[in-house]
Every structure is written in structure tokens, then in C-alpha cells.
């Protein structure tokens, strides 16, 4: 199977539609949830994914914990530190996820920093993702030019959608370039901040959301950073296709534990 994919991936990838593409076609606003693998407990990963899907979440970002998460605020930093203390590693995460497609059908995206992927071996990593049924990757510190030069062919060979970020400071020209390079959705960072830094959206976000909507990008946008409740979820998805909740979900897990996930999702979708 891999051998065939290796040689004719470009044809096949247009035939086999990635779960992300299918999901983006659905006529609804998408709720996506980020959590850190290995947190609160090492073996919560599969249970969290199943519970999120069973409660109507559309897409999941599984965070690969990193020792030095530059773009993350205190909440995700703390969950990453704890996950690493619990013993999470890249291999272990793959091990935990190996049968995930027997029970879960929504898109799964791995999100993390580039160094652990580099150490695992980029091609090996992508191959493993494909075997498991991972649909995409978000690696915030893998820049566009390096991706295009060194890794795009590998990602595509294994059917992985790579998701790029834009921010309110990203120029229109750069957004166009990113739109051109993307094949899935664009991760719209809501404001100039690390994760978990703010509550509520003001005028500047409204302007930014409007500006992006008017650009008529070929890829739909999913908003992330600063979404914490049903109000911010609705604001974020007025124009965008969906929104991602991270820090608020992790805080919830810390306070309420995995069995209460149903309440969290209900709170957002109310």
C-alpha cells in the first residue's frame, strides 16, 4: 500500500479525500478541540478523543507535548510539562493511537513543535500518521518556505494536510501565499498572543475577521486562540468555518476531569 502511494500519491490523494476535506464540506460551523496528549493522565488520550467525538465535536487537535512550547501560554505549558512528566513520548502516542480508527471517524490532527518530529524522522513520522489514520499536522514553528522546499512532498506522499497559521499582523500578500500553499483550512490566530491569553473578542478582532472574510480565500478558515465559551465560539464562527478551543478545554479537564467532557461540549454548543 505504501509502495503504491509512494509512486502515485498525487493521483491517489485526489481520489481518496482526506477526512478534513470531507468535514469542511459539511454545512455547519465546526467545533474543534485541542488537548495535550498524556494529560491529565498518561493513558487518557483515547478516552478523551472518543468522548469528544461522541459528544459532537467535529475535529480534534492532539497536542504532542514539547518541553519549550514558545507559542503557548501558561495553561498549555503546564499541561505539556505534566504530560512529559507522566511519560508521554512520540512513540507512545503512536502506540496509544494505533487502533483509534476502529472507534473514531472525525478528522484527527497532530499539533506540536517541529523538533520532536525532526528527531523522530519526518518521513517516519508522516508514515506512522498515515498508518494510524491521522489526517493533518499543525507545526507552528515549521515555516512555510522550509515546508515547501523540504517537506511538502513527504507530507503529501502520506496524505497529510499541513495547516498554516495566520495572525492579525500577517500581510495580505503573505496570506495569499499561505492560501496558495494550503490544502485544507487556514488556522486563523485570533489576536496577537500566545494561547490562552485573552477572554472575549473586541473591535480589533471584528475588523480582522471581516478583513479575512473579504479576501475570499480558497481555503476555509478556522479560528483559534482565545475561544473559551459559546459566546466567543459564535463570534469567531460568524464568518469563519469553525473554531478551535484549547486552553479553556484543558482548564476544564484540570478542574473537572475526563468524565465531565460532555458538560464542556454542551456548554459550547448550547
Amino acid at each position, binding site marked *: 500500500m505504501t509502495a503504491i502511494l509512494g509512486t502515485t500519491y498525487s493521483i491517489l490523494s485526489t481520489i481518496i479525500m482526506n477526512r478534513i476535506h470531507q468535514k469542511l464540506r459539511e454545512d455547519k460551523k465546526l467545533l474543534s478541540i485541542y488537548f495535550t496528549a498524556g494529560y491529565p493522565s498518561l493513558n487518557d488520550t483515547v478516552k478523551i478523543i472518543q468522548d469528544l467525538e461522541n459528544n459532537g465535536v467535529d475535529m480534534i487537535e492532539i497536542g504532542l507535548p514539547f518541553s519549550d512550547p*514558545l507559542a*503557548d*501560554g501558561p495553561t498549555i505549558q503546564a499541561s505539556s510539562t505534566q504530560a512529559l512528566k507522566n511519560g508521554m513520548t512520540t512513540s507512545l502516542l503512536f502506540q496509544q493511537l494505533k487502533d483509534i480508527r476502529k472507534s473514531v471517524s472525525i478528522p484527527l490532527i497532530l499539533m506540536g513543535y517541529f523538533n520532536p518530529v525532526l528527531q523522530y524522522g519526518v518521513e517516519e513520522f508522516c508514515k506512522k500518521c498515515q498508518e494510524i489514520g491521522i489526517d493533518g499536522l499543525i507545526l507552528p514553528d515549521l515555516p512555510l518556505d522550509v515546508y515547501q522546499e523540504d517537506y511538502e512532498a513527504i507530507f503529501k506522499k502520506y496524505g497529510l494536510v499541513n495547516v498554516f497559521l495566520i495572525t492579525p*499582523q*500577517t500581510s495580505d500578500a503573505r496570506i495569499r501565499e499561505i492560501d496558495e500553499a494550503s490544502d485544507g483550512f487556514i488556522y486563523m490566530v485570533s489576536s*496577537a*498572543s500566545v494561547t490562552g491569553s485573552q477572554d472575549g473578542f473586541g473591535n480589533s478582532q471584528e475588523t480582522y475577521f471581516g478583513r479575512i472574510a473579504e479576501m475570499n480565500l480558497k481555503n476555509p478558515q478556522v479560528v483559534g486562540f482565545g475561544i473559551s465559551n459559546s459566546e466567543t465560539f459564535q463570534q469567531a464562527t460568524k464568518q469563519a468555518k469553525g473554531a478551535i478551543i484549547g486552553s479553556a478545554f484543558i482548564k476544564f479537564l484540570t478542574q473537572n476531569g475526563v468524565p465531565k467532557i460532555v458538560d464542556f461540549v454542551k456548554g459550547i454548543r448550547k
Partner: protein
Amino acid sequence: MNYNVDEKGYYGEFGGAFIPEMLYPNVENLRRQYLKIMAEPSFKKEFDQLLKDYVGRPSPLYFAKRLSEKYNTKVYLKREDLNHTGAHKVNNTIGQILMAKRLGKTRIIAETGAGQHGVATATVCALMGMECIVYMGEIDIARQAPNVARMKMLGAEVRPALSGSKTLKDATNEAIRDWINNPVDTHYIIGSAIGPHPYPDMVTRFQSIISEEIKWQLKEKEGRENPDYVVACIGGGSNAAGTFYHFLHEKEVGIIAVEAAGLGVDSGESAATSVLGKMGIIHGCKTLLMQTPDGQITEPYSISAGLDYPGVGPMHAHLYKTGRAEFIAITDDEAMQAGMELSKLEGIIPAIESSHAFAILETRKFRPEDVVVFNLSGRGDKDLDTYIKYFKL
């Protein structure tokens, strides 16, 4: 072989800018502008003037007679310890504050380990009337108390980095997060030859005044511009980059980089990146760094806060990989003894970082006619507490 940065921001396979998109506009703007700005006559004039009148440059190149006699070779010390604020760090902060002004920035952030870079940044911010926030690991705040007080006197706000190992690496993470949160008005003055391109090259160029001066000073003293060896300690690598810069392509000059072995390279408590590190990404840069097989960055250890960094600047990674530089690792004990020896023999109390460089004289043999220039990157005032505890003074 080219040892300078290439047009894409790499030294061989090391370097680049592995940054999240949030940092892209600032880093890209800096990349586009830094060489142009540095080449402006008004920039050069202001930079040179401040280095002369404010920093006190040129720093002397001093022939260390008693040290030379003891080790039977010609030892010269480049006296960066005599700079205003007591270390080489100020060469870079003067350059970067002028850069920040020309980029229209009004708020400055920095990370610091030993506090030397923090003090040098707070100093230039006071000089230019700019807001200054310095991130410093909680552990370093405790072990470098005098520098914390200095920064406060200079009007800077010192914010403790509470995450991870609570030292330099974590202070750098916090500074980067601050920059993500404040992309419009803020310039990040990185304190070493690390970080995403163009930082390693920009910092190296500002520090290259060290080797520029060594050349003409040595010509005056020895009748030749090139020594047989230049030696410097390496934390992130800024004083070393400045010391090596004008000799990189002079084949007859041996380059020696000295890393902190901590309690010993194999002890598990070390910061000897060239030995213990593997290619990876730290703080936006592809370089050698200490990490687990899984790619988690590990906690380094050195008695000197300024060398307590798990990576090394990409230029040095390249010098190591190509064999252009010889790398030597010096333990805490060796460095402390060397610090005491320099004090006793030459009347100079060095920073413990710099002591690592002199310590190689015990084991690395030089010929009697060799001219060996050591960069004395900083003075030991900030380390008195550590010296007192170590030697029970």
C-alpha cells in the same frame, strides 16, 4: 569553505528561522532591513561614537606577562571586562538599541542568564529613554542578585521566568512569548548569537568589533595582525563569535571554543553542547542542542549562569561540524581555579564564564612562540558570591 551566514540565513546546515507565524512579520522586517541599516553612515557614526565615548572602546589588548611565564607561551587578554557594564554584552545592546530606534520600536524586551545582558540592555534603554523588560529565570535571579538590583536601578522591570528549568532557556522562551503578545511596538534584543536568522549574524556583526580591534592592536604589539590562536568561552556564542569573526577565513589562526562541562561531560550535569548535543531546533534556530532522543530539550548545568544554555549559536555548530574550531570542555572546578589564578597572577578577577577560557592553559599545550589571544569576556564582580562560597573566602 564559507563560515559566514549565507543569503538564506544558514551556516552550512545550521541556522534558518524556525519561528511561528506570529513572529514572522517582525523577524522578516528585521531580516530585510538589518544590513541596510547597519550600512547607513549615520548608524555607523552613532554606533562608533557610543562604543568610544560610552562603552570606553577600544578595549585594551593586554600582554599577560606572569600568565605567559607560567605557561611558557605568549598570552594576550582582550579586556572586554573593562567595557562599561563589565562585559562584551554591551557591544550588541548598543547596536540593537540603535537598530530598534530605526525600526520605530519603543519597547524593549530581553532575556538574561547571568544578568550581564540584562544589565547591558537596561543600560542602553536608560540611555535612549525606552521601556525595558528583562526576563530572567527564577533560579538565576537568586544567584545573580547584584545584577537584578542593577537592572532595577536602571529602570528596567525584571520578570521572573517560572517555567521549565527556570534559567536562561526559559527566560528566552518568556521573552519570545512577550514578543508574540506585543508585535507592534516591541523589539527583542537577543543577548547571544542565537535565535532565528538574522539574529545570529546581526549579533555577530555587532560583536565583531572585538576581533577588528585585536587585529590592529596585535599589529602594534607583535608586528602581525594574526595570532596563532584565538580562544573564547561559549554560552550561546556571542563573545566567541565576535572574537573569531575576522579570523574565520585566516587559515593560520587556530580557533578554540571553550564550553562548560559543569560537573563533567559524562556527569549528567553539563552544558557541553558540542559533545552532548544533536542537531535540532531551539529558539527558532537549527543547531546543535542538548535533547532527549524524543526531541525534548534537556536542562543544562554549569556553575556559570552565562554558559548554562542547552544550545550553541549556529555559526559555532558549523565551526564544530567542519572542524574549523577546536572545542574544549572545562569543568566547574577547572574554571574556578583558573579564575583564582588570573586574580593572583594578573590582578584581574574574571567572570566565571571567561575563566572557562583561561582554564585550557592547564591542559592545552602551546608553543613558546605562539601568540594566544583570550577573550576576557567579563569581570567577576557579579560572581563574587559564587567565588566566596566556592573558596570559602
